[in-house]
């Protein structure tokens, strides 16, 4: 099976655009064009999905006053089977309006080897952490912001809707009418996609659960597909 990768990238970018438009109001002093999702791509294979320029900042407001920025970036390529548009890397980041250092960042890196594929970085330094790191891991920079807090790996990582919900719930930023329903729908869409991917990783588990539910599942003529232990075991 082959896909129209450019079409898939357009559809994905439009999903991000629709989500942002439906959840975050655009401040009066921000040109609407700055909220446009732009996707530079090359050779029809690599796509960078971001908002406006490469810094990809979306202004967050409280009572219509700017209070911070959301940065959202997705880098997409074809997956290893060349049948899906896959996220190669994503970054969701919260910044305060006058401070260009982030508060928190949720990263996903498909090919990560020295850190969990999906992780939070929290930019809130604390002496206790630096002290402990200096004793246990002297090669570490010693900063809390350099710690990678794992969050469920590639398949079960939080989605952009989760990050937006976190901003709304904790920081009470301005939202559009109906935003929470849009987040719920988007989260369901995301989780259904991830379930599909997890089923491909572990078809034996899918068969077991479906059988328990009373379904009759037959293996394909080509034989049963083995579980992808490498994907299931990845950090």
């Amino acid at each position, binding site marked *: 099976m082959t896909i129209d990768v*450019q079409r898939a*990238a*357009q559809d994905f*970018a*439009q999903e*991000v*655009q629709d989500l942002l*438009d439906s959840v975050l109001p655009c401040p009066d002093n921000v040109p*609407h064009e700055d*909220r*446009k*999702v*732009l*996707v*530079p*791509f*090359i050779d029809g294979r*690599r*796509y*960078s*999905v*971001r908002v406006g320029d*490469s*810094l990809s900042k979306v202004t967050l407001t409280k009572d219509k006053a700017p209070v911070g920025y959301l940065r959202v*970036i997705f*880098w997409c390529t074809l997956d290893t089977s060349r049948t899906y548009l896959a996220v*190669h*890397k994503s970054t969701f980041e919260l910044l305060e309006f006058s401070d*260009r*250092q982030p508060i928190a960042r949720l990263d996903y890196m498909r*090919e990560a080897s020295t850190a969990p594929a999906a992780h939070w970085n929290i930019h809130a330094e604390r002496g206790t952490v630096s002290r402990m790191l200096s004793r246990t891991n002297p090669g570490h*920079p010693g*900063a809390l*912001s*350099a710690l990678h807090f794992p969050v469920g790996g590639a398949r079960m990582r939080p989605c952009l809707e989760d990050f937006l919900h976190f901003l709304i719930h904790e920081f009470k930023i301005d939202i559009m009418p109906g935003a929470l329903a849009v987040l719920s729908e988007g989260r369901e869409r995301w989780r259904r996609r991830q379930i599909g991917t997890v089923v491909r990783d572990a078809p034996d588990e899918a068969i077991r659960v479906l059988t328990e539910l009373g379904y009759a599942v037959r293996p394909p003529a080509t034989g049963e597909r083995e579980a992808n232990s490498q994907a299931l075991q990845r950090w």
Partner: protein
Amino acid sequence: MTAELYEVTREQLTKQRREALTWLGVPEHDLRQRAAKHVLTPEERDTLTELEEIDFLLGDDA
């Protein structure tokens, strides 16, 4: 609003990369070293973000 795809060339990206580093005025090796130590200034961080996108598009991010 409608999201927009636009194609870029290797030549454009290479030029953009050169210009970003010239604007910053910091050698790339120094920039990468400061990034590894988590001591980037906001300007350096923004430039690194731009370089990382370019390198991804060029396929030089591995």
